[in-house]
């Protein structure tokens, strides 16, 4: 925008923040559009929709992203028509707007990675613009960016407040690449601007004018539901050289409304009103009594109404309080443009804190051990105190990484909508427990498996409307995504009311594929679990959505890689329910510590089935340390860690076997010592260990020793390799011999 390098670098720095915010707005836009499909004509949704588009356009304008501004402007025009009730949202229109939203997303991505905008993309955009214009019924007014219609001045709607803005822009505003025009455009995204006046006298005459200095002084009124910070936010990029007076045109009631906005959370309307000073406690009591009286006569009177008629509380105050209450109830659901309560933190900073914290846990364990050894009671006590605090910090830091799963869930609304349309099915998606929190890294990694399961349910589980009607079910299928916490882990449930899983078909397929001995019929749960076996697919026809037979086993593997588990239940004709259990965090696990010679290793405790202690060291291992032991009459494959990782220490006379379960298979691992359960702080593997197979991370023990953490799944694969294949690219190869006895 400006020749000035400093400005360029400023924009470079601020751009990622814009992009991440724009992406959130785009996400919110999509959700709003999808919600609107269910409740067309909902004015609040329409307003929020318009605000989102406006915010994107406005902030893109600040960054001079003309393509985004230009395109979004057309979208905004159409949204304005919808908002004004001049147009009704039809399914076609909704589809068009969703496509446009995809286009905005692409344009914002383009801002991030310039040069990816192809002629094809431009043509597609052009076509969309034409459709938008045709839909808005106003083809080609030629208005350029920033030319949205100005709202009429008039009475302030109850939910909004009227602000007076007096802005004196700094002389360097233009030189810094900022345009007051875009800033006003952004403000218009927050509400309606009117009575804008530019102080002509502040501008010098041509002879005296430095054309690149800004002399503009603007005075305007803004009717907006936005908070003061949001309005001030419009000026955040020019804050340093600006003179901004922002005053609310407030009567006393408006002030009360503002206090309500700023109040701490409380869900009782009366409490909200009383603590904002809008009503006295005795009067509130009266109101509550009146309400109770009405209730005893079988009438339900909303408290807001009672207080308005009896206690003379202004409608405006009540509606502010109701809004507050509503927000509190809905918090967790998408609340667009209401992110004032959050601060944005880069994920890697959190990770850095988490890493340090891991160090702290380890150091504190070391200190405690030393203190104990010193036998000084006061030192021991002091250390215990530190230990308790460290524990607390650990827990609250883990809490910082927790994010609600709702965002991931709501991404599926679009998937369900589009996929159902493609398959010509009618499906309603229900989301339950979207505010359930789990670790950010788990959320990120669960999205793909979930996507697969959702598609599977849409494709195979749910029937078409005709089939459903014929089966005596409501024509509209139901798909539910639910989440809740359950005993230290999170439980995600994907259920549908479709046709369920045909056990006979599963059996036949399993026999055919050799997954089961022909004719054998295991119990129900085992039959259902067969669909998670590699190479299994019952789809009668392969669609492009799912059913390529590479699905469910990959899903299970991914979930198990997160140390989770997946189970399925199904009732023929009634639907299926898949339950995924995941740990709340990946940063700290319960581990099981073992020793081989001087080396220490950790298994995730969940993967350990049982241990066989202190038995004579197995004989008959092959060159790669593989062999078999007998366990309660069954043959269990075992692998020796000493041989697998070419550890040099001499084998002891007696050793132990840790029985590990992975993906339905069991195998034993030969170790020297069992050291028991261990709270394990997972640290990434150092680079030199990255090529080491079978390991997922490392951990530092209280005495400073390093232990390697097994990735049970890949260890299982290693254990199953045919003999003779090298385990790693080691210069000295596998030195230990099979001679362990």
């Amino acid at each position, binding site marked *: 925008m400006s020749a000035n390098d400093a400005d360029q670098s400023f924009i470079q720095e601020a751009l990622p923040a814009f992009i991440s915010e724009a992406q959130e707005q785009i996400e919110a836009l999509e959700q709003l559009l999808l919600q609107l499909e269910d409740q067309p004509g909902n004015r609040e949704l329409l307003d929020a929709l318009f605000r989102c588009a406006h915010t994107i356009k406005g902030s893109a304008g600040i960054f001079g992203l003309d393509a985004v501004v230009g395109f979004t402007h057309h979208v905004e025009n159409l949204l304005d028509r919808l908002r004004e009730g001049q147009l009704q949202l039809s399914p076609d229109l909704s589809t068009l707007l969703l496509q446009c939203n995809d286009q905005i997303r692409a344009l914002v991505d383009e801002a991030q990675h310039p040069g990816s905008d192809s002629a094809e993309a431009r043509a597609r955009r052009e076509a969309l613009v034409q459709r938008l214009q045709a839909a808005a019924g106003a083809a080609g007014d030629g208005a*350029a960016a920033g*030319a949205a219609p100005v709202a009429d001045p008039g009475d302030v709607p109850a939910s909004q407040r009227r602000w007076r803005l007096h802005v004196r*822009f700094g002389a360097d505003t*233009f030189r810094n690449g900022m345009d*007051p025009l875009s800033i*006003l455009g952004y403000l*218009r995204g927050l509400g309606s601007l009117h009575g804008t006046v*530019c102080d002509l006298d502040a501008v010098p005459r*041509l002879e005296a004018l430095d*054309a690149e200095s800004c002399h503009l002084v603007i005075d305007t009124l803004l009717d907006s539901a936005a908070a003061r910070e949001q309005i001030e936010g419009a000026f955040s990029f020019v804050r340093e050289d600006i003179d901004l007076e922002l005053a609310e045109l407030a009567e006393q009631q408006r002030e009360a409304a503002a206090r309500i906005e700023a109040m701490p959370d409380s869900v009782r309307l009366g409490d909200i009103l009383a603590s904002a000073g809008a009503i006295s406690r005795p009067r509130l009591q009266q109101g509550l009594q009146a309400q109770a009286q009405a209730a005893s006569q079988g009438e339900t009177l909303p408290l807001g109404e009672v207080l308005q008629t009896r206690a003379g509380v202004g409608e405006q105050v009540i509606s502010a309080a109701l809004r507050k209450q509503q927000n509190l109830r809905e918090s967790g659901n998408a609340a667009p443009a209401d992110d004032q309560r959050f601060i944005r933190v880069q994920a890697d900073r959190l990770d850095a804190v988490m890493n340090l914290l891991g160090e702290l846990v380890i150091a504190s364990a070391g200190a405690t051990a030393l203190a104990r050894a010193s036998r000084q009671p006061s030192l021991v006590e002091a250390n215990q105190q530190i230990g308790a605090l460290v524990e607390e910090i650990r827990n609250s830091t883990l809490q910082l990484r927790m994010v609600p799963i709702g965002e991931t869930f709501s991404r599926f609304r679009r998937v369900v909508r589009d996929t159902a349309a493609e398959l010509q099915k009618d499906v309603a998606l229900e989301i339950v427990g979207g505010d359930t929190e789990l670790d950010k890294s788990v959320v990120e990694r669960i999205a793909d498996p979930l996507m697969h399961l959702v598609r599977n349910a849409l494709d195979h589980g749910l029937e078409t409307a005709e089939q459903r009607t014929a089966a005596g079910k409501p024509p509209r299928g139901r798909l539910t995504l639910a989440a809740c916490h359950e005993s230290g882990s999170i439980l995600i449930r994907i259920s549908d009311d479709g046709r369920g899983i045909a056990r006979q078909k599963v059996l036949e397929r399993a026999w055919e594929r050799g997954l089961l001995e022909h004719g054998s019929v295991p119990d129900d749960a085992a039959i259902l679990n067969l669909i998670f076996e590699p190479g299994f697919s019952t789809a009668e026809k392969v669609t492009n959505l799912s059913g390529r037979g590479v699905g469910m086993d990959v899903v299970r593997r991914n979930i198990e890689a997160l140390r989770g588990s997946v189970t399925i239940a199904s009732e023929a004709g009634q639907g299926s329910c898949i339950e995924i259990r995941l740990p709340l965090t990946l940063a700290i696990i319960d581990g099981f510590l073992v020793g081989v010679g001087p080396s220490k290793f950790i298994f995730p405790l969940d993967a350990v089935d049982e241990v066989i202690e202190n038995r004579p060291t197995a004989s008959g291992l092959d060159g790669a340390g593989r062999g078999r032991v007998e366990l309660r009459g069954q043959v269990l494959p075992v692998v020796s860690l000493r041989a697998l990782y070419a550890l040099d220490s001499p084998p002891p006379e007696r050793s132990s076997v840790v029985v590990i379960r992975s993906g339905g298979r069991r195998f034993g691992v030969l170790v020297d010592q069992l050291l028991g359960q261990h709270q394990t702080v997972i640290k990434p593997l150092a680079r030199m260990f990255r090529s080491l197979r079978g390991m997922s991370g490392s951990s530092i023990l209280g005495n400073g020793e390093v232990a390697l953490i097994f990735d049970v799944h890949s260890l299982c694969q290693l254990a199953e390799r045919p003999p003779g294949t090298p385990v790693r690219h080691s210069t000295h190869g596998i030195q230990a011999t099979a001679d362990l006895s």
Partner: protein
Amino acid sequence: MNDQLALPAELTIYSAAELRRQLLAHVDAHAQDEVCRVDGAAVDQVDAAGLQLLVSLARTLAPLGRTLRLDRPSAALVAACETLGLTSSLIEAMPERAQA
């Protein structure tokens, strides 16, 4: 018919310094004309710096007893004036004052 100065397609900070010189020259060259005419038909991109220039031009003319007349303002120009609260002073009022 007065000579008109056609505003460029880009009425922005990038062309502001150059345009200021042109406007000054235009004002001087037509010192006798009561109405100073500027044609806005070609304007495609506008920013506040561009508008500020027009305000400055109007301010220059006023004490000389002259008026600015913005002819055929493009949609982009009209919209920008509206946003900045300049519609009355640059677009609507000028032609009327010119008549008076």
